[in-house]
């Protein structure tokens, strides 16, 4: 049966993820060392897992409130206030979602109407542009450049804005580049946002993973930006809780109400045990000075330095990524495209990395390498890559 006439053309028009193809390819190489993962190599700290176990033992198996457990939302409010000077009312301005991914989808569906343009820095996380299309909007890529350390500049943003522009997605610290935005970078963006009357979805899922003395600044904390920003964050990266699928969105009461309308009909609520674990993560963090985060961050930072140093020694141009857990070296000197480089590296050296083009056309010429992997494996992978690069330069 031909289903073409039944399938929603808007959804069908979105090409399959470039990640998927590589996943299939890499899955056939049993001994490959993967630098292609997008999640921590730590397990969720046991104290957090234990909170979920206890909740199951105690028979807590029911739905929660649509917006999430009140105790969790209260902890989120305390956390954002304490860490990023953001004041959100736990009851009316915070919505707990199934990962930050659902929060992004809800925000897009709540705000985007047919024909609206959404500005998306490129390269960026794979789901923004498709999410905009699903919501009926048009994604407009705003190219970021290696010469700017892959920061979004006011100039590039300004050039991409049209009368149809409604929304800017601001994903920093950035996946795949590891770029961060300093306060003064964000302030310049804020002026453009104000001038063109835009709203901003600030995806801050990597906010805790920032290195070498740099600090994360929440976009909503900038003057005039609180009312224009939907702040999105979650537990996957900071607390190594990817599989639990818990995230949240914070914004003006009116926006959260509409997002919650979609959430309550589509999802009902995020799974209870994930919420219980998330609440434990924040409570323990508040009580012990976020010890678990600091330990993991120190460990990532060492591996980050190791990887950046090794790429530079190979002769690959590599800007210093101060956020997330990715390095995004340029492989242009090899004369290969990102796709060719990654395919051949995998086939010849059993090392998996992700071509930059999986994250948008501006990723051409770069590859994403994740350093959330054991040091001994990173070292082996880097040695193999050095061999590969020297053969191709």
């Amino acid at each position, binding site marked *: 049966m031909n289903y073409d006439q039944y399938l929603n053309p808007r959804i069908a028009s979105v090409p399959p*993820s470039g*990640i998927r193809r*590589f*996943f299939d390819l*890499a*899955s056939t190489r049993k001994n*490959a060392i*993967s630098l*292609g*993962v*997008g*999640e921590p*190599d730590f397990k969720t700290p046991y104290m957090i897992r234990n909170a979920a176990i206890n909740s199951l033992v105690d028979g807590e198996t029911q739905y929660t409130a649509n917006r999430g457990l009140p105790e969790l939302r209260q902890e989120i409010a305390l956390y954002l206030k304490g860490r990023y000077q953001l004041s959100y009312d736990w009851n009316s301005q915070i919505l707990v979602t199934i990962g930050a991914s659902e929060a992004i989808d809800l925000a897009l569906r709540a705000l985007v109407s047919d024909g609206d343009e959404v500005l998306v820095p490129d390269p960026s*996380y*794979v*789901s923004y542009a498709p999410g905009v299309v699903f919501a009926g909007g048009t994604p407009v890529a705003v190219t970021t450049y290696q010469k700017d350390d892959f920061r979004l500049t006011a100039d590039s943003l300004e050039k991409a804005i049209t009368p149809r522009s409604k929304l800017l997605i601001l994903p920093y610290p950035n*996946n795949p580049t590891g770029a961060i935005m300093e306060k003064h970078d964000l302030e310049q963006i804020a002026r453009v946002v104000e001038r063109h009357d835009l709203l901003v979805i600030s995806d801050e899922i990597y906010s805790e993973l920032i290195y*070498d003395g740099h600090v994360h600044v929440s976009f909503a904390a900038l003057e005039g930006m609180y009312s224009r920003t939907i702040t999105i964050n979650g537990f996957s990266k900071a607390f190594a809780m990817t599989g639990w699928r818990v995230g949240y969105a914070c914004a003006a009461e009116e926006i959260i109400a509409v997002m919650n309308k979609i959430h309550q009909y589509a999802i009902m609520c995020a799974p209870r045990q994930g919420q219980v674990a998330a609440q434990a993560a924040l409570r323990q963090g508040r009580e012990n000075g976020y010890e678990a985060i600091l330990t993991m961050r*120190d*460990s990532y930072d*060492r*591996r980050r*330095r*190791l990887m950046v*140093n090794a790429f530079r020694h190979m002769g690959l141009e590599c800007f210093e990524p101060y956020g997330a857990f990715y390095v995004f070296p340029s492989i242009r000197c090899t004369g290969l495209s990102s796709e060719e480089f990654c395919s051949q590296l995998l086939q010849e050296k059993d090392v*998996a990395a*992700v071509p930059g083009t*999986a994250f948008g056309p501006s990723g051409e010429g770069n590859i994403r390498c994740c350093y959330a992997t054991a*040091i*001994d494996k990173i*070292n082996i992978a880097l040695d193999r890559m050095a061999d590969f690069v020297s053969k191709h330069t």
Partner: protein
Amino acid sequence: MTKLEMSLLDLLQEDCRLPLEKLAVMTGATLGDVAGAIDDMEKRHIILRYSPMINWDLTDRERVEAMIEVRVTPQRDMGFDAVARRIYRFDEVKSVYLMSGSYDLLVLVQARTLKELASFVASKLSPLEMVTGTATSFVLKRYKEEGVVFENEDADRRLVISP
């Protein structure tokens, strides 16, 4: 302790074969500083030796281990230290700890056979004049030591590639 020293200890405890150059890169310090800090910690007996952690259960070597709770009479002027010294000098003794609670010293003993271990307790440890009593418990299985889990539960369950 400096932040560099603590970072080096973390890294070396995980893998003491890491070369100085990589330690320097990972800590953001110079080669000289790293070498100096390690040298210094060796002199201060913070780093005692560099040795692998071995799961002997997977080898052919037979061995028996026991934890012995020892009650002793502390020695005048020397407290428990003199007693501990008398005990830890035996080759069979792998670790000795002074404990709070219902006994005084916890002694970890290793021998090739049960007979050897029994003979250690009966003819070496118990006859010491300051030892007033012992209770021996044999180790049946090791699950975790020094933070390392012996069962292979740490397999990477992540997807090979994810966004």
